C-alpha cells in the first residue's frame, strides 16, 4: 500500500472512532440529564439578577464532565480525520460531500464547546448536539462516503480553500445555533406554561439552561456565522466569475444560498424587532438551518447544477 492509501485508510478508521467517541459522549450526556435532580425546577436568582443553575447531583455532574471530555477527544479525532484526508490526497480536505459534511459537523461540535467555555451552563445541551452529530456522521459514512482522491479540474483553484472553508465554518455555526434555538423553543414553551406542563418535553425542558441563555447563545453563533457565510458567498461569486464566466448564475446551490442568507438576515432583524424577538425569531433560525440542510442534501444529491461535485453516484 502506498503512503497515501495508508493515510486514507487511517482516516477511515479515525472516522469510525470519532463516531464511537460522540456516541459515548451522547450516552454520558443522557446520563447527566437523566440523573439530574428530578424535582421541579428551583431556579435561584443571584443578587445581580443572573440565574444560578439548579444543582446537579454528584453522579449527574460527573457524567456531564466525562461527556464533555469525551466530546473534546472526539473533536480531536474528528479534526485528525480531515487532516489525514488532506495529507492523503495532497489537497484541502473539502473536495466532496463526504469531506464537506465531516467539516460541517466538526465546526458544529467546536461551536458547542466554545459556547460551553463561554457559558458553562450550556453543557446541559450537550445531548442535543452530540446525538444529531453522531446520527449525521453515521449517515455521512453510509451514504456520502467517497474515496480520497484528486480534485477535478474545475476545483483546482485557490478559491476552493477560501470558499468551502468559510462555507463549512458558517454552516457549522448555523448548525449548532439552530439546535440551540430549537431547545429555546422547548424551554420557552415550558416557561410559558408556568413550568407545570406535563409530558416528556417538560421533564427535559426544566433541565435545560434558561430560555434567555439559550436565546443569547443561538444569537451569538449566528452573529459569528452570518458574516462568515456572507464572505463565503462573496468568495464563491469571485470564483464563479473566473470559473464559470459569470459571478452569479442562479444555479440551484446559489439560489438556496441566497434564500439562506435572506432567512438569516431576517433572523437578525427579527431578534431586534418588538413582536418578533423571542419565539418568532427562534423559528426563523430553525428555518434557516432547514434551508442550509436542504441546500447540502437536496441540491447536491438530487438536482443538477454547476455545483455538482458531490462525488456520490
Amino acid at each position: 500500500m502506498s503512503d497515501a492509501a495508508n493515510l486514507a485508510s487511517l482516516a477511515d478508521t479515525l472516522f469510525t472512532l470519532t463516531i464511537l467517541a460522540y456516541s459515548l459522549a451522547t450516552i454520558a450526556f443522557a446520563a447527566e440529564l437523566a440523573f439530574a435532580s428530578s424535582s421541579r425546577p428551583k431556579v435561584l436568582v443571584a443578587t445581580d439578577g443572573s440565574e444560578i443553575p439548579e444543582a446537579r447531583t454528584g453522579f449527574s455532574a460527573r457524567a456531564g464532565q466525562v461527556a464533555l471530555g469525551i466530546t473534546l477527544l472526539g473533536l480531536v479525532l474528528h479534526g485528525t480525520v480531515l487532516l489525514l484526508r488532506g495529507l492523503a490526497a495532497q489537497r484541502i480536505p473539502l473536495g466532496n460531500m463526504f469531506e464537506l459534511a465531516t467539516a460541517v459537523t466538526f465546526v458544529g461540535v467546536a461551536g458547542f464547546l466554545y459556547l460551553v467555555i463561554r457559558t458553562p451552563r450550556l453543557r446541559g445541551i450537550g445531548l442535543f448536539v452530540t446525538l444529531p452529530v453522531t446520527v449525521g456522521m453515521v449517515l455521512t459514512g453510509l451514504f456520502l462516503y467517497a474515496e480520497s482522491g484528486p480534485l477535478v479540474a474545475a476545483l483546482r483553484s485557490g478559491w476552493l480553500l477560501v470558499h468551502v472553508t468559510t462555507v463549512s465554518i458558517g454552516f457549522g455555526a448555523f448548525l449548532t445555533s439552530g439546535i440551540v434555538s430549537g431547545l429555546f423553543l422547548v424551554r420557552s414553551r415550558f416557561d410559558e406554561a408556568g413550568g407545570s406542563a406535563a409530558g416528556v418535553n417538560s421533564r427535559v425542558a426544566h433541565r435545560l439552561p434558561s430560555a434567555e441563555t439559550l436565546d443569547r447563545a443561538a444569537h451569538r453563533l449566528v452573529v459569528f456565522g452570518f458574516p462568515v457565510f456572507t464572505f463565503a458567498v462573496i468568495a464563491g461569486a469571485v470564483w464563479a466569475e473566473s470559473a464559470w464566466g459569470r459571478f452569479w448564475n442562479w444555479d440551484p446551490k446559489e439560489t438556496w444560498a441566497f434564500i439562506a442568507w435572506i432567512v438569516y438576515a431576517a433572523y437578525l432583524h427579527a431578534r431586534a424587532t418588538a413582536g418578533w424577538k423571542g419565539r418568532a425569531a427562534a423559528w426563523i433560525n430553525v428555518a434557516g438551518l432547514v434551508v442550509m440542510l436542504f441546500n447540502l442534501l437536496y441540491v447536491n444529491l438530487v438536482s443538477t447544477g454547476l455545483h455538482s461535485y458531490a462525488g456520490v453516484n
Partner: protein
Amino acid sequence: MSLRSDAPHLAIDAPEAGQTRPTSPTGRPPVRARVVRVARGWWRWLTSMPTALMLLFLLALAAVPGSLLPQRPLSQSAVAQYFADNPQLAPILDRLGLFDVFAAPWFAAIYLLLFVSLIGCLVPRTLGHIRSLRAAPPRAPSRLSRLPRHAELSTDLGAEEALDVAEEELRVARYRVLRKDGAISAEKGLLKETGNLVFHLALLAMLISLAVGKLWGYEGSVLVQEGQGFCNSFQQYDTYSAGPLIDGADLSPLCVDLEDFQARYEPDLTPASFTGDITYSRALDGPDEQATIGINSPLRVDGTRLYLTGRGFAPIFSVRLPDGTELTDLSAPFLPTDSTTMLSEGVLKLPDLGAGRDQLAVEGVFLPTAADMGGGLLTSVDPRPLDPAVAIVVYTGSVGLDSGIPQNVFTLDQERIGRGQLERVGAANLRPGESLNLPDGTSITFTGFKEFAALQLSRDPSQLAVLISALAMLAGLLTTLLVRRRRVFLRPGDKVLEIGGLAQGGSAEPAEFERVVTGISTALAAAGPPDRRDH
C-alpha cells in the same frame, strides 16, 4: 443589523398638539387631506420593520421555484423537456413566469418594494445619525444608581479634580465626553450605527450596479475547433444574450483563434486540466498576441473576458461521390453526453453536394477509446482519444436546412426520418481510415478527429462595482455586529465618584464597564493629593 429596531423614525404625520385638521362642511376632511393621510399610512406601513421582514420572506419564497423548476437562462432544453413531460401544466407555469423566475415581474415587484421600503427607512435614519454624530452626548440622568451598571469610587480628590482625571481617562479610552453642570456624560460606539447604515447603503449600491450590468452587459458562446476562430460580433456566436442598451457596434473588436487544445487527466482519469492556446488581436489588423486559457483562468482584455467553458471532439470525414468528386476535411462538433468517457453524439449535415444530388447526413456517436460490447455495439471506456472510433448511420434525402425552420445542429429532425424525407442508406462502425460504401457508390471515410472548445466571451461593465458594494456590505456588517454602543455617566459626591453605565442593543456587557471603572479607579489613585502620596 437592527436597522429598524428603534421607535418609528417617520413621525411626519403626527399632528402637533392642539393643531386641528381642516374639515369640509360635512365634517369629513377634504379629499386631498384624506388621500395624503392614506398615502402616509401606507408609506408608514411599507417602511415598518414587520413589513420589511414579510417582504424578505416573500423574496426567499419567490426564489424557491427558480431552483426547483428548469430555468430558461440555465437550460433551454430542460424547459423543453419539462413541456414535453407536463403538456398540461407547463403552459400555465410559463404564463406565471416560473421558467424564468428571476426575470419575472412579480419577482421584481417584491425586491423593488423591499428597496423602496429600505430607502424610506435609510434616508431619515442616515440624517438622524449624522445629527447624532455632531451632537454632544446626552446629559447625565439625575440618579445614576438606577442605570443597569453602577459603581462608586472613593477618592480624596475634589469634585472638579476627580472629574478632570476621569475625563482624561475616558478620552484616552476614546469616549466622546460632555462635561456639564458638574457631571460627565460619555459615549462610545456610534460606529455601530455607521456600520449598519453602510451595510444597507452598500446593498442599495449593489442593486444599482447589478442593474447597470444587466443593461450594458453581454455574453456570447461559440464552439471553435482547433485551427478555427471567431470575432466578437453577435452574428458569429452560436448563442448570445445582451442587455437592452447595447448594440452590435458597441462590441469590442476582439478576434480569437484556437491554435491547440489539451486535456490532461490523472491516472484515475480525474480531469486535471483543460487548456487552449489562443492567438488574439484587440483590434482589426491589430498585432497578434498569444495566451493560454483554461478552467479557472480566463483571458481578460480591456474589460472583456474570454472563458473556456467546455470541450469535445469533432470527427473528420471525407466523402467520395460516385462521379469521383472528393470532399475532404468535413467535420462537425459532437456533444459529449457522458463527461467521464466523453462518449459524444452529433450529426454531420451535408446539404450541398452539387446540383440534382440528394443531401447527406451522417449521424452517430464518437468514442475516444472504443470498446466492443459485443454484437457490434461500441462504447467508450476512456475520455482520452486512445483508440477512437465512430458508429454512424447515414441518411440521404432532404435534411431541411433550406426549409427556413431553425434546426438543432447536433441532431437530425426525427420527423423528417418518419415522413420519409430522409432515408437510411447505411450504417457502420469505423476506425480511422475505414470507409462505408453506400449502395449508390458514395463512400464515406472516417479520417480522424479534431478537438473543439466551447468559448464564452463576456462583458459586464459593473462587476467590479458589485464586488466593491459586496465588500462594503461585509465591512458594514462586521462593524455593526462587533461594535457595542455604550454610555457612561459620572457625578462626584462627597469624597466619592459615582459611575453609571448602559449599553444599547442586545445584552449589556459587564466586562467593558468594569474596565472603565478600573481604569478610572487606578487613575484616581495615581492622581491622589501630593501630600498624601508623600506620606
